[in-house]
């Protein structure tokens, strides 16, 4: 299988690491030999129809920060779109940074690949939360496979879990903690009694929160995931503007203390159901499935046959997210062969 990876940040590098780690297993178990034929980042691309060396890709990116410095096969000033036009590939891994304004350039990359009947795997929430139906329609019109497990909850299985494992069930809602940064901050505030800003600063120093934490702490990231879940699991047709969003920046140590005395914790909970789409701080019972600490993500799926099913897992991280992407690649491979 010839792979084109657009975007070579933490997730893109994670994907290539995982492919190299699992190379023999993939060949033995699935007869799947993955060849990375093109990788792009802001600087340009590295292209080799016979397959790029993954060790060299990572070394190049770590040393110079530019994939275009890849020896012999590096090209500078080549855009993702140009690469998709020129390179012969089977599957696009779209892992450029999430853009929640217009979903670009990821949207264009994905549509271009789908139009050419190429399969697409992504972790990119931007286009999924803004133009979900457009992407699904584009994939369907050319019989391309489109999978995006990594876009919600990182390594925590939820989308394929709802579609495949819970097949036959009617799903009425998905509730969950979908942002690890917020959960880390709220857990620390509950355990230490520390104020919000101090805890946010600490999380930034540890690299858990980004320098500009707005998308995480104001609930926007979780809202994108709620949109994806509503569209893909509940078959709704909604976008980001349909979600009521409130973040965690107004949460105080006093409110957490008051909650604790009644046996509750405050968590940022996303809810996708037919009558409610929201991301809001909510009270959850101590000892309940939602009472997870640290950067963990959790989701409870409510179904008619299986009742409630809860999954927990790591919501972020380069290798963890790559795990979800790899499982999508394998399932497309299985479906194709």
């Amino acid at each position, binding site marked *: 299988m010839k792979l084109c990876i657009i975007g070579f940040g933490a997730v893109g590098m994670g994907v290539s690491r995982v492919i190299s780690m699992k190379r023999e297993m993939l060949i033995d178990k699935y007869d799947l030999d993955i060849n990375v034929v093109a990788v792009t980042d802001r600087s340009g691309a590295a292209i080799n129809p016979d397959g790029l060396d993954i060790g060299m890709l990572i070394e190049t990116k770590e040393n110079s920060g530019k994939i275009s410095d890849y020896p012999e096969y590096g090209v500078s000033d080549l855009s993702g779109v140009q690469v998709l036009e020129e390179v012969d590939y089977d599957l696009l891994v779209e892992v450029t940074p999430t853009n929640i304004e217009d979903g670009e350039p990821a949207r264009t990359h994905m549509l271009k690949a789908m139009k050419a009947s190429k399969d697409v795997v992504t972790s990119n929430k931007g286009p999924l939360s803004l133009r979900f139906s457009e992407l699904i329609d584009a994939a369907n019109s050319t019989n391309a496979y489109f999978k995006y497990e990594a876009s919600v909850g990182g390594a925590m299985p939820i989308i394929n879990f709802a579609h495949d494992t819970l097949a036959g069930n009617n799903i009425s809602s998905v509730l969950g903690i979908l942002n690890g940064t917020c959960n880390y901050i709220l857990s620390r505030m509950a355990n230490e009694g520390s104020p919000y800003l101090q805890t946010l600063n600490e999380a930034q120093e540890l690299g858990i929160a980004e320098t500009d934490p707005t998308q995480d702490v104001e609930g926007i990231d979780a809202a994108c995931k709620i949109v994806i879940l509503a569209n893909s699991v509940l078959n709704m047709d909604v976008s980001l503007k349909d979600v009521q969003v409130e973040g965690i920046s*107004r949460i*105080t140590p*006093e*409110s957490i203390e*008051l909650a604790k*005395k*009644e046996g509750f914790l405050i968590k940022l909970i996303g809810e996708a159901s037919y009558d409610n789409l929201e991301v809001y*701080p909510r*009270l*959850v019972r101590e000892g309940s499935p939602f009472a997870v600490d640290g950067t963990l993500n959790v989701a409870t799926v409510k179904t008619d046959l299986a009742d409630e099913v809860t999954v927990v897992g790591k919501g972020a991280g380069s290798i963890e997210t790559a795990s979800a992407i790899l499982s999508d690649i394998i399932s497309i491979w299985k479906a194709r062969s």
Partner: protein
Amino acid sequence: MRLNLVLELLDVPGQLLDALNPIGKLGANIVAVIHQRDVKTERGTVPVHISIEGDEETLKRVLHTIEETDVQIIEVDGVVRKEKITTILIGNIVDQDLKETVNVLNGMDGVRVADLNLKMSDNPEESSSRIIIESDYGRKKALMQNIKEFGKSKGFLVINEV
């Protein structure tokens, strides 16, 4: 032993039968049914008074079975069933009139504020209050939505139960 229940039925055909069926099936004896369709609650539902007889185990099973259907049991032996709802409000509740907040909540259908805890912060905008409300059975979801809307109008952050 005998149990007097008040059930709340939707005013649609078949509801009364659905409610009575499990009682007989489980071996309890129906002593009386008072069903007046023209007496309605504020929610448009019809209250039905039912007296049933049976041994303790059977009556327990009956209650359990009715609870699993769409029929609400609102009273058992003259005692109105209540649900406890905890909510936390963050905001300048003292300046925004604490008394009015409690009055508004108490004014909602079937609601009583049972407990209120206030924790002041250095910044009055960030004061927290935990309110525990007792409400009639089955009203929780609607009530939480009402509280959220009320909170929004006052500029409070409302943290409801999941």
